[in-house]
């Protein structure tokens, strides 16, 4: 066989594999949307569930998802961005930073059910007087441990992308290091930092296992952070497993997919802005 023919076969195989991946994706999304979209209407989105979720709407799960995402990000963002600033601006590559980097990377590789188990033992049981047991707060704190690595690493990359010539230019004007970070470095790196935050929101929205063990899963609308709740993902799991109401499950799945799609598109829009800033 001559090399040209081999080249053609290789190209055909590879493009076939590429096509297959896209087809699988389109098939899954298409199937879920075709099953679920018919369910979605104003009533489905705004009314309370009946019969353990087998009938009625998904309003409490939407509220629960919002509460959990907001609480998680309010706690995780300052910690993660602060750690990234410390790592990139205040330390050089020493022993402590390599330990911190290793820790964040190791944290990123842990299966989410393990985070859930930890959250259950620590936040739900041990800290019950503070967190209220199964609650939005317990789940949010568990979520924080899960998304911190993402936030730290994306923020660190974004800060690293800011050229040193800008730092020098600012310091040479007689500004302090903190003024330089606050007034120049952070705003310049902001699109990249926001990308990390949005990806983390996606992770919280999509997560099920960890919140199964920490959020409780009540169908009531939460009145405070110490109340239990359920997210859309959790609702989907529970409806499918406990009631067998597949139409509601697919409707919830369709809402979830649309939500995640919006989140990812926003993230990539911010990321493109970061790239543009340096070209």
């Amino acid at each position, binding site marked *: 066989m001559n090399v040209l023919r081999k080249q053609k076969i290789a190209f055909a195989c590879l493009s076939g594999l590429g096509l297959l991946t896209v087809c699988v994706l389109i098939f899954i999304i298409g199937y879920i949307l075709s099953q679920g979209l018919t369910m979605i209407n104003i009533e489905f989105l705004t009314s309370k569930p009946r019969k353990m979720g087998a009938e009625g709407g998904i309003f409490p799960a939407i509220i629960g998802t919002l509460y959990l995402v907001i609480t998680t990000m309010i706690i995780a963002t300052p910690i993660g961005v602060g750690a990234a600033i410390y790592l990139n601006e205040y330390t050089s590559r020493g022993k402590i930073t390599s330990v911190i980097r290793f820790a964040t990377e190791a944290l990123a590789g842990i299966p989410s059910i393990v985070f859930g188990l930890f959250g259950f033992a620590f936040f739900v049981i041990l800290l019950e007087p503070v967190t209220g047991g199964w609650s939005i707060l317990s789940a949010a704190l568990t979520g924080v441990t899960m998304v911190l690595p993402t936030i730290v690493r994306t923020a660190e990359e974004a800060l690293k992308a800011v050229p040193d010539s800008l730092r020098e230019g600012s310091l040479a004007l*007689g500004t302090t290091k903190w003024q330089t970070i606050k007034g120049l470095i952070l705003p310049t790196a902001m699109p990249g930092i926001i990308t990390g935050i949005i990806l983390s929101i996606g992770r919280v929205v999509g997560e099920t296992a960890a919140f199964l063990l920490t959020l409780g899963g009540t169908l009531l609308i939460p009145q405070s952070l110490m109340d239990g709740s359920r997210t859309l993902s959790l609702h989907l799991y529970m409806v499918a497993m406990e009631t067998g109401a597949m139409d509601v499950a697919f409707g919830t799945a369709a809402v979830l997919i649309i939500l995640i799609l919006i989140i990812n598109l926003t993230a990539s829009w911010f990321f493109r802005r970061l790239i543009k800033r340096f070209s």
Partner: protein
Amino acid sequence: MSTPQIAAKNLDLFYGEFQALHDINLNISEKQITALIGPSGCGKSTFLRTLNRMNDLVKGVSIKGEIQIGGENIYDKSVNVVELRKKVGMVFQKPNPFPMSIYDNIAYGPRAHGIKKKAQLNEIVERSLKQAALWNEVKDRLHSSALGLSGGQQQRLCIARVLAVEPEIVLMDEPTSALDPLATLKVEELVNELKQQYTIVIVTHNMQQAARISDITSFFLNGKIVETDITSKVFTNPSNKQTEDYITGKFG
């Protein structure tokens, strides 16, 4: 000659073990342009960066001897580096405009130093851009991004940004090496204008440039000062053989 505004006394500088500057003694007078020339790696930029302590940012740098500015040793423990850098501004080799509007670039320094009133900032921005001979080119687009300016305009913007802080001394580290000849000419004209109000120390690898714009020229070689004299004398009748070899192009 009046008392020098900047005086380096027996200055040694080390990068770790490596000694980059040897026993530098140099007096720089007020409202003059002093050019530092010499081949690559001779220590001229390193010396320039000791004058506003930008070398502090480099790991492993240590210094012996002293540098006096206005009679005060800037390496004294009591010296506030932030205050020093307000007084001693710096323009870099590659234009480094901040990724923000032209207006915000200029207002950045004054804002950091506590000026908040809009009218006052407007006045500073206009004055600085006029001083840097950039006002007429940008006055209609002050709020568009500084990154959209040409290289030469960006460098004049960086000069305006330094002037907005009202320094006494302006250090320039090969400010035209990234610019085309026309933009270079504009910056040179500007430097000549600025001399009336500021003391300027300029590092250049372009000898014609040193000859064109400076009053005093100091020739660096291998981390030492070989010769410092009135520019016209250095270029027509140098007292040192090495200086002569360098300016006539025998090496470097």
